[in-house]
């Protein structure tokens, strides 16, 4: 905590100094998307002002410069998640596309009738629907690991659900609506005993905690740029080389080919085989600054600071007797979901907004979790290293006023 100069950090994010509805912005919707530091904003401006061109296509100066920055980012991502090779880093539009890519290439190639794909009850819709679609197409079954009332995976059930029919496991690292940190290393170890590949949805973990793909031995990892202080529309799929090489292309088009004739097309090698068409170049280049920014602050410092904010917010909110926290796992990330009896989350959201506080209200694209806890929706505050305890106080004060109004 003492390692972070939060005031300095806040001054790096231009949006944090603005007013909303006449009040200083309190941005507690970081699990939906994070704000962008000036470094990222300036870099995108720099890209369009100085080196805008298409990548991998020109022999001219601008294209070579842009291509170098584009490919250097791949190495930066490789280093950030400790992948063995930069060729294992595929650019996508985001976590959702990363998962869809694996489901419709690896899934389509390997699943047959009667096979099973295993997910958990706390997946985001983006880690449910792609698997449902491919299972339906192949006649495979989608199996779900249940969770406890605290929002933790029931690992004994996971053990029971794995069998010789299980062909793929896809699990979220940190739940976006409960904050639960799942024991993914254990999950992967167990799966590998049965030679089952595992995809980790790291959309809510990559910005909060150290993710090391070689140490985890995960087969695929998916995350988004915009939830880690980078631009929207850019995401990453990491995959082990030996798996990626066997997978068919995802989309056809330019850049993913070696040669094309009307009789036969030869595909490019990985990662380009999966990157058809002109990519989101400024997204990639902006993402590089986001990663550098995180590295400058240090992921350990970020983790510690955010744990501290979560602890403080949990204590403060627990003092309000009308509040019930949804998601009380022992290992939690800086996500605080809650309901207040008799007050719908949307009313809470509108009320807090008038105090300049941005939180998320709704089902958070996790309808099965809402049904599991028998609530139509929750309110969710999610914190970042640029948030302050003083902001938590403003938030708790505003919550008390809503309760008063509705009582």
């Amino acid at each position: 905590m003492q390692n972070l100069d939060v005031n300095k950090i806040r001054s790096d994010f231009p949006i944090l100094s603005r007013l909303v509805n006449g009040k200083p912005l309190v941005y507690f919707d970081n699990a939906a998307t994070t704000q962008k530091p000036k470094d990222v904003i300036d870099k995108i401006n720099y890209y369009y002002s100085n080196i805008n061109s298409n990548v991998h296509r020109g022999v001219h100066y601008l294209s070579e410069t842009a291509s170098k920055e584009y490919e250097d980012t791949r190495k930066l991502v490789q280093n950030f998640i400790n992948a063995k090779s930069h060729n294992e880093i595929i650019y996508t539009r985001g976590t959702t596309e990363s998962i869809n890519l694996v489901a419709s290439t690896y899934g389509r190639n390997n699943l047959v009738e009667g096979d099973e794909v295993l997910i958990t009850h706390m997946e985001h819709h983006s880690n449910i629907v792609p698997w449902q679609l491919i299972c339906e197409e192949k006649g495979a079954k989608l199996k779900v690991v249940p969770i406890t009332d605290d929002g933790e995976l029931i690992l004994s059930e996971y053990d029971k659900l794995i069998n010789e029919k299980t062909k793929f496991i896809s699990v979220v690292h940190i739940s976006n609506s409960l904050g639960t940190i799942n024991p993914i290393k254990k999950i992967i170890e167990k799966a590998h005993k049965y030679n089952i590949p595992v995809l980790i949805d790291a959309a809510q973990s990559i910005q909060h905690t150290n993710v090391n793909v070689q140490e985890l031995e995960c087969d695929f990892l998916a995350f988004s740029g915009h939830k880690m202080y980078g631009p929207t529309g850019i995401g990453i799929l990491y995959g082990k080389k030996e798996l990626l090489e066997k997978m068919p292309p995802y989309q056809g088009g330019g850049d993913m080919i070696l040669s094309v004739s009307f009789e036969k097309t030869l595909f490019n090698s990985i990662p380009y085989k999966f990157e058809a068409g002109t990519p989101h170049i400024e997204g990639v280049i902006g993402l590089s600054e986001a990663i550098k920014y995180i590295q400058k602050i240090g992921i350990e410092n970020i983790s510690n600071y955010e744990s501290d904010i979560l602890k403080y917010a949990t204590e403060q909110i627990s003092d309000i007797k009308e509040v019930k926290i949804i998601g009380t796992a022992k290992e939690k990330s800086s996500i605080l979901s809650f309901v207040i009896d008799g007050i719908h989350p949307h009313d809470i959201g509108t009320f807090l907004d008038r105090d300049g506080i941005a939180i998320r209200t709704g089902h958070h694209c996790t309808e099965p979790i809402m049904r599991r806890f028998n609530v139509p929706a929750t309110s969710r505050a999610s914190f970042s290293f640029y948030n302050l305890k003083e902001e938590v106080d403003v938030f708790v004060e505003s919550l008390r006023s809503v309760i008063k109004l509705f009582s």
Partner: protein
Amino acid sequence: MDAELNDLYQQVILDHNKNPRNFGELESANHTAKGHNPLCGDQLDLYLLIIGDTISDIKFKGSGCAISKSSASIMTTLLKGKKIEEARVLFTKFHDVVTADTDTEIDEEALGKLAVFSGVREFPARVKCASLAWHTLLSALDNKTEEIVITE
């Protein structure tokens, strides 16, 4: 609390949220419809007993925010005993109230009880909450019992 928020959460709305009128199932209903707002998870079941061209009884149940619940509650109190044509006129009036430009003067007298929803105009994200019950009403009048009305 600021003035706009005060306009949105008027006492009448808070009261209907806490004590919704005509809440529950109507077993004798011959026109029903379901409303759903996937964005916030609001669910609404609307039951009408229509005899001739008159809504002789009306009830609703479901879960939702204060705006959607009070809108449904107030709607039922306005519609009981009204002719179908009158109900359609009220729908248009309501629609105009929640979607009018914020600088349009509201004729409170002509609107009667519906005037309490004029504050919704300041909150574009909440217009769907307020109108769910009324859109479900249109569906129920047409007796599209199986069709789920979606506002998002």
